[in-house]
């Protein structure tokens, strides 16, 4: 018997959030981190990514298609839930709620970010240190990017915790608790990477 659409969609949503999207976010933040070594290092790293072979295939299959599915199905999931943290204020219920809030934040942020960088590049602009420095010189944009990056990193780290449960890796409460710590360390670590990169542009 074939698995139902619900099952396949949910599992695919969970998988794509980590592979490839989570890995891509980590890689993206790592490239950004070159900004802490100065404009030249950042430009070299960005240029290396731009000049990868079969770049469009990579972008379509590693980034845009998984992102599109994860985002659209994710919004459907988020609006299906009836949040109840006021009545059940447990840690995991808060994480469940924050996962949905951060998901919506990430969707807004990424849509804007893709427009501001990738689509501008497609229309002839050059993506480099100067471009980001110009964007982030606006304090409102800086705040928007800080919220966006923190939201993205949280959504990934906490989503990773859910991934381990949803695929049946962490079954015991003990292993799930351990993963809470591991994923929160990932959240903090990637946040430091993201924030240091952002502040390197200003």
């Amino acid at each position, binding site marked *: 018997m074939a698995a139902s659409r*619900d099952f396949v969609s949910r599992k695919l949503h969970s998988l794509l959030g980590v592979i490839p999207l989570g890995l891509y976010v980590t890689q993206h933040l790592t490239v950004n981190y070159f900004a802490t070594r100065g404009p030249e290092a950042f430009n070299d790293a960005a240029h290396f990514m731009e000049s990868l072979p079969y770049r469009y295939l990579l972008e379509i299959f590693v980034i845009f298609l998984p992102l599109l599915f994860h985002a659209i199905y994710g919004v459907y999931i988020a609006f299906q839930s*009836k949040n109840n943290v006021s009545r059940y204020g447990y840690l995991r219920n808060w994480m469940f709620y924050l996962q949905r809030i951060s998901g919506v934040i990430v969707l807004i942020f990424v849509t804007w970010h893709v427009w501001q960088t990738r689509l501008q590049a497609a229309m002839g602009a050059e993506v480099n240190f100067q471009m980001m420095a110009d964007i982030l010189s606006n304090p409102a944009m800086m705040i928007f990017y800080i919220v966006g990056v923190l939201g993205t990193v949280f959504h990934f780290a906490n989503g990773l915790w859910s991934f381990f449960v949803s695929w049946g890796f962490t*079954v015991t409460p003990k292993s799930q608790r351990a993963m809470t710590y591991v994923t929160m360390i990932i959240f903090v670590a990637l946040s430091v990477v993201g924030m240091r990169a952002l502040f390197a542009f200003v």
Partner: protein
Amino acid sequence: MMSEKKTVTLKIKRQDGPESAPYEETFTIPYRQNMNVISALMEIRRNPVNAKGEKTTPVIWEMGCLEEVCGACSMVINGKPRQSCTALLDQLEQPISLAPMTTFPVVRDLAVDRSRMFDALKKVKAWIPIDGTYDLGPGPRMPENKRQWAYELSKCMTCGVCLESCPNVNSRSEFIGPAAVSQVRLFNAHPTGAMNKEERLEGLMGDGGLANCGNSQNCVQSCPKGIPLTTSIAAMNRATSLQTFKNFFGSDH
């Protein structure tokens, strides 16, 4: 200790029928020692007069065993879903608020229709089929240590509290809820039940199935029987993940 308290005040969310609008009615009843919410409701039934002194209809609720085994008398008491039989008035802050569980359609007052839970049990085939045309003889034996943990899962009384606390069980979703998922784990752990474990896993992988869990883990915090519901969910996640691979790539067992 509490004998100086002369009366008990209850604020009850009432509803005359499935389609009617809910309203609140307050009752003040004489206090007796060791009362529980059910004995308070019985007192209202005996003398259906509200706090304003007006005669009203008795409040309707469901009950069965009166010892937290049947699961019929669940309601939201002071904001938390639980069984009214084990809700002792001495341990509740007054005025005590009573409301029907919100996840289920209200039949009348505090009585709700938990059909979606029983439909879920049918969907995942939460039973062991042993009836046949002849005596099959004794089944395989179950190791004692396994029986002991399986017994914990068998304490589920389909009371609805886990579904009430779950943010993913609502009118917008078909999610079967934590109780049925845990029952699959119970019956699949049974040596005879294991003979049909794929059928139950297929049920879990159906629409509205296990994958709809969002891991808020409210269920395990709310279960009055302390059933390790989130462990069951994760265990069934693993079983259905493996089943998916077996179904797709093939396996002889």
